[in-house]
């Protein structure tokens, strides 16, 4: 069989356990006989082991898609769970939402000045309204801050939203369950990923060690053979 260093496709199939299993078996047998190929494979495996040490920095992700329900300008944005990206989505198309949110800030501050806030949570929308406003439907709409998913891009909204559970706003049980489920989902996925990573590292290390042992045994065996041959030559020479 030709050296696998000269046949890179066979070498890669062997390294990554792809391709025809019969061919990989043939390569494994060849490796037992050929020290040069064993060394080459060992070095490639060592490179692969080193590659596993390059880990991306832990970054807060938690993206989620938020859809604007507005029939005038339907659009979607991807929000970042851990930081505010409101500046990213600033463009003429989103300025309406920004203005709405800016108005929310003004009203929120003025509402605080009166220390009379009425916070409600209905149909997935948080409504914060100064109590001095008349509670007729029309006025509520006109004077309220509507914390829709669109305006939640603005930091102040996140603050109001975060404060919501401690205010007079009841949390929907379904929503709570959904949050718990998503947290469990995320945790499970993270654990599975970590387990898979650990398993692959262990497998790789065991494999590398196995190859190293084989090589060492082969070298020892070669030395033994040489010593035996030397002895036989010397002995046979002495007999003559």
């Amino acid at each position, binding site marked *: 069989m030709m050296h696998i260093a000269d046949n*890179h*496709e066979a*070498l*890669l199939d062997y390294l*990554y356990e*792809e391709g025809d299993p019969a061919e990989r078996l043939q390569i494994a047998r060849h490796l037992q006989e050929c020290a040069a190929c064993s060394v080459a494979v*060992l*070095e*490639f495996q*060592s*490179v*692969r*082991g*080193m*590659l*596993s*040490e*390059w*880990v*991306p*920095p*832990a*970054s807060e*992700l*938690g*993206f*989620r*898609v*938020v*859809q604007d329900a507005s029939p005038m300008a339907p659009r*979607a*944005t*991807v929000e*970042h769970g851990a930081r505010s*990206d409101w500046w*990213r989505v600033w463009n003429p198309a989103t300025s309406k939402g920004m203005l709405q949110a800016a108005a929310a800030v003004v009203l929120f501050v003025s509402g605080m000045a009166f220390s009379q806030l009425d916070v409600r949570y209905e149909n997935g929308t948080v409504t914060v309204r100064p109590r001095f406003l008349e509670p007729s439907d029309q006025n509520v709409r006109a004077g309220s801050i509507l914390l829709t998913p669109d305006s939640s891009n603005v930091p102040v909204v996140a603050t109001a939203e975060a404060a919501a559970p401690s205010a007079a706003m009841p949390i929907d049980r379904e929503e709570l*369950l*959904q949050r*718990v*489920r*998503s947290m*469990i*989902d*995320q945790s499970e*996925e993270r654990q599975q*990923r*970590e387990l898979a990573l650990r398993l692959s590292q262990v497998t790789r290390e065991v494999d590398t060690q196995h190859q*190293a042992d084989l090589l060492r045994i082969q070298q020892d065996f070669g030395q033994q053979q040489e010593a035996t041959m030397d002895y036989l030559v010397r002995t046979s020479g002495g007999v003559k």
Partner: protein
Amino acid sequence: MTTMAAVVPMTRTDEELVARSKTGDTESFNQLVRRWERPIYALAYRTLGREEDARDVTQETFLRAFRALSGFKGDAKFSSWLYRIALNLCRDWMRKERRAPLVPVPEGVEVEDMAAERGPSESVEDLAARAELGREVARAMAHLPSEQRQAIILKEYHGLTFQEIADLMRCPLSTVKTRVYQGLSTLRKQLGEQMTPRRES
């Protein structure tokens, strides 16, 4: 009493979540985001070398995927489709950056970031050595031609088959294997110094 089994939902496949997302179920799409944002971020980070850029690419990848979801026919795996969007975005980003005078060297992972992952018998020195090795690998990878680097990243860190990589990069299978082989050979030379003590240990 509510048991855990009642709370934990059945894990849906990507295909099921895609089908539900197509009907307007944004929460299903967000499940796909949660499932794939780490791999996409890792792909972007290893391709671009900067955390901030990788996050931007990840965000943009999901936004584009969401907008184009109706056009996704399911011929390929959803993850392959996402990878393709992310790689295209990375390529665009690199084209823009090529005008810049400096080639960014990938940021390394700090020891404290790795501390959470360390094994029970691993010392701080071991951690520091691992962090340094990670930086060496990042530097060596940054010097590879982008096609070789991408092929190695997809193979080594994302476990794609050579055929999947060929489909993703739209090139013949033999080309992918050549790229991976050439890349690994270069790394083998560049990281050669680290190899000897590692083998002894």
